[in-house]
């Protein structure tokens, strides 16, 4: 079909994707894809891949899947960031041109928020939430897998846009009318909307899943006020997700309708109103930034009390302030568009509501400090991140308050001051929190610690690199440099600070490389942790062996106090020392299923068809989706039995069964 082929090539690989960087990316993808393929083929691992990973519904394995994707996406987003910084290092140098730069900052923001931070958070949720509350799994194990595959295929869809068809290029916020078909022909923005829609559905399901898990499946005796702080933050994050993602879904969906089916929501003509998109986006977007920071707060609360050897200071206030942040998060979204002329009353209202958030956040900051007060601080890598977090986040929060000062925001809006603010909280808050959690829970997930010395090096690179990168950006904002410029002329005095900032970015990059090496090195050389409790932990997950057996708890523990495991250790009755053979009963566990994977694939194919408006493919994907749903409606065989004997043997093998 010769006439068909050029069309395909032109659509899938339009001229602007034939640039050196993108061809390089193509090449790398091909090489690594082929590498993976041959590895699997050579070692006959296909079956292993399918039964152990692609069909798994075990929350601990799903956690690993999330973690791997998140680190990969951190790499992708980080490489994007380095490209941005390279372009901006000096005035009027353009290693990449405007077209590509726009694609790069768009994917950088989108990937970092949706495909790095979110899955990283879900990795931690999945890895420890059921363990911490003393439960055998999440409420809906199969839906949990569905969430992951929707996320994964959504991420894949966005990532292939770089090499097939063209990337989105209107910022992570995707404001219309710039995203309308009139200004943005080609598949890029459709990729953005489609992939976020798909991943967003998965995220919403995750929110529901963890909300129900936490409110319904806590171990006996674990009342609300005995929940570890990480559970509190997970609970509030889940609630935030449930109420924040729907507006995003609507905003994305309506944009897609505008682009593909000619409706008139955000168009220039026909009574369309772009600002409504902005409104809906930030109705989601502001809660979103707390969605990514609350779990980090949770991690820090666990880490600080563990490594200070003290109970969390002001537990009740900590729990209530989390809830307060959750509530307030819904009421501040307009601060992202103070400059859209909604009038002084609207602005004043939202300025004040924004400032209010400082109070519960401050409560947390002070409680962390006073948790350390009178403790004995062990300087592990997880704790180092915590220590770097407090000053960094306070400064980021303080500049946030300056942005909330409405007339000041008229000057700060969309300048590099803003860029510096949000990296300050996103890196100093979220990323540091995730790193802390990574080092803290790694032994629980994999059974060995990450090397602490290398971890410390990576930490210093991240921390120092961070300050070198983003302090100058505050000043750049005061010099009037606006964001999303692919280059800038000489003569504004912007170049000095930009050079410094770029250097800092590369220091962070070095930190990332050390981190990757650290993971590789630790996998090969670190000793196994046999205790299951390498940090002298306080919460229930440390009561289990590492890695945790499939059924988590041979017998569900009874909780009598906050820091349940700590109390048990004090009283000398741990799970390990008290399990008798007759306590072990047969269990029912969720059975693996290929449905989630197929469903995700269906969404992916359908989404791809939508992006290129190839309707047969879109319909085909839709049919796969419907088919998997119908299949699971009729599938009553979703559990499996695990005989008591198997569990006894496992526990005995771990030395945890009394003779």
């Amino acid at each position, binding site marked *: 079909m010769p006439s068909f082929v050029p069309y395909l090539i032109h659509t899938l690989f*339009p001229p602007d994707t034939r640039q050196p960087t993108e061809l390089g990316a193509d090449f790398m993808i091909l090489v690594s894809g082929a590498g993976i393929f041959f590895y699997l083929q050579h070692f006959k691992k296909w079956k292993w891949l399918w039964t152990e990973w692609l069909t798994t519904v075990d929350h601990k394995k799903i956690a690993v899947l999330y973690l791997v994707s998140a680190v990969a996406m951190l790499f992708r987003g980080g490489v994007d960031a380095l490209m941005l910084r390279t372009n901006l290092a000096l005035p009027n140098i353009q290693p990449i041109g405007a077209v590509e730069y726009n694609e790069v900052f768009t994917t950088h923001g989108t990937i970092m928020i949706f495909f790095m931070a979110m899955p990283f958070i879900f990795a931690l949720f999945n890895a420890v939430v059921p363990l911490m509350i003393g439960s055998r799994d999440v409420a809906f194990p199969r839906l949990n897998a569905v969430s992951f595959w929707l996320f994964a295929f959504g991420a894949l869809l966005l990532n292939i846009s770089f090499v097939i068809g063209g990337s989105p290029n209107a910022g992570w916020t995707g404001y219309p009318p710039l995203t309308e078909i009139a200004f943005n022909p080609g598949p890029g923005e459709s990729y953005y909307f489609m992939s976020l829609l798909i991943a967003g559905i998965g995220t919403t399901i995750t929110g529901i899943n963890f909300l129900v898990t936490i409110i319904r499946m806590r171990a006996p005796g674990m009342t609300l006020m005995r929940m570890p702080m990480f559970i509190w933050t997970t609970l509030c994050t889940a609630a935030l997700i449930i109420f924040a993602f729907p507006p995003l879904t609507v905003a994305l969906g309506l944009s897609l309708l505008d682009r593909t089916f000619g409706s008139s929501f955000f168009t220039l003509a026909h009574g369309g109103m772009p600002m409504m998109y902005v409104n809906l986006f930030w109705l989601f977007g502001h809660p979103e930034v707390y969605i990514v920071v609350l779990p980090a707060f949770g991690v820090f609360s666990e880490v600080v009390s563990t490594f200070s*050897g003290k109970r969390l200071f002001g537990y009740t206030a900590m729990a209530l302030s989390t809830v307060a942040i959750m509530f307030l998060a819904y009421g501040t979204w307009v601060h992202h568009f103070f400059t859209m002329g909604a009038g002084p009353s609207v602005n004043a209202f939202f300025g004040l509501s924004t400032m209010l958030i400082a109070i519960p956040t401050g409560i947390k900051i002070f409680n962390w400090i006073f948790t350390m*007060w009178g403790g004995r601080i062990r300087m592990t890598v997880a704790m180092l991140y915590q220590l770097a977090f407090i000053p960094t986040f306070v400064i980021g929060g303080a500049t946030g308050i300056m942005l909330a000062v409405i007339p000041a925001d008229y000057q700060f809006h969309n300048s590099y001051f803003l860029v510096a603010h949000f990296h300050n909280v996103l890196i100093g808050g979220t990323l540091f929190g995730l790193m802390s959690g990574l080092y803290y829970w790694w032994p629980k997930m994999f059974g060995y610690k990450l090397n602490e010395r290398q971890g410390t090096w990576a930490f210093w690179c991240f921390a120092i690199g961070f300050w070198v990168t983003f302090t100058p950006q505050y000043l750049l904002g005061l010099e009037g440099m606006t964001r999303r410029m692919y280059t800038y002329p000489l003569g504004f005095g912007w170049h000095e600070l930009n050079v410094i900032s770029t250097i800092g970015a590369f220091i962070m990059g070095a930190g990332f490389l050390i981190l990757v090496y650290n993971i590789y090195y630790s996998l090969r050389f670190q000793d196994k942790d046999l205790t299951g409790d390498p940090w002298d932990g306080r919460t229930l997950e440390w009561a289990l062996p590492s890695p945790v057996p499939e059924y988590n708890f041979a017998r569900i523990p009874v909780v009598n106090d906050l820091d349940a495991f700590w109390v048990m250790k004090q009283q000398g009755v741990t799970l390990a020392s008290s399990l008798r053979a007759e306590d072990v009963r047969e269990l029912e566990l969720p059975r693996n299923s290929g449905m989630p994977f197929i469903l995700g694939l269906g969404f992916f194919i359908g989404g791809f068809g939508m992006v290129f408006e190839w309707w047969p493919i879109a319909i085909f994907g839709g049919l796969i989706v419907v088919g998997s749903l119908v299949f699971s409606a009729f599938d009553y065989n979703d559990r499996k039995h695990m005989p008591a004997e198997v569990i006894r043997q496992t526990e005995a093998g771990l030395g945890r069964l009394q003779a």
Partner: protein
Amino acid sequence: MLHRHFSRKGRRLLALAALGVGLLVAGCGPQYVVLHPVGPVGRQELSLMEFAAIAMAAVILIVFVLFGTAVVRFRDYKGNKNPYRPDFHDHRLLETLWIIVPAVILAIIAVPTVKTTYALAKLPAHTDPVTIDVTSLDWKWLFQYPNQKVATVNYAVIPTGKPVLFELTADSPMNTFWVPQLGGMEYTMPGRVLPLWLQANKAGVYWGHSGQFSGVGFEKMFFHVKAVTPTAFQRWASHTHATAAPMTMADYHRLLHFTVVGKQTYASYPKDTFPSVTHGFSLSGGMYLLVRNNPNRG
């Protein structure tokens, strides 16, 4: 006495850092445009900024002192004599304190914030402002003077010492209109006219830029605002009206193309190119004819 050492080194570092920041900010050159406003709007915004910055510095200081002390005193090393108090995990007074103090600080910031917000929303009384209609186009700025009848592209002339009312709209994706030395920005949005008043008290040329990304030519959306004395302004307007070429509808349509252009001056302009209340909000641009030669892609 490990912690002594640490804190002395820390103090020295702190001093160095403070010096660095101080040099950058206090001795800041003219490139710090936000810090060098030339009109009342920018000045009010700056003074609020400074006020908030001072308050925030206080907050940061408090946190840093507490934090530094905790870290220095309670690290886990052999021979640490500071008391280990694992049951110190509640303190009613302290916890009330760190609700009240931030609340007070916030209240102190909030009051002038709200006041200034309302103040900036109103034109100063007893002044007749010069009105300039601003339309952001891909990727250029069109300035139209409804009273002087002239139009310019990518630069505007304003009188000093008088408030200028900019009426902002867009016949393109959104941008923001920002002249840092005059004051803060506001969006230009299709289908909506937003007012923004600014004033220059000193003659001079001030650069402006768009703050909202709007496609590949966005970086080129610099423009200049030239503030001259009111008489010079009048002279400029009438001179332009008399000598420059008029803008035709065809000219306007050419401006709508996705291009970057230099400065332009017109003696007059077709009405209907700026949405007026009587005309509803429809520009006569006809954007949709221009889809094909869009350079946003490749």
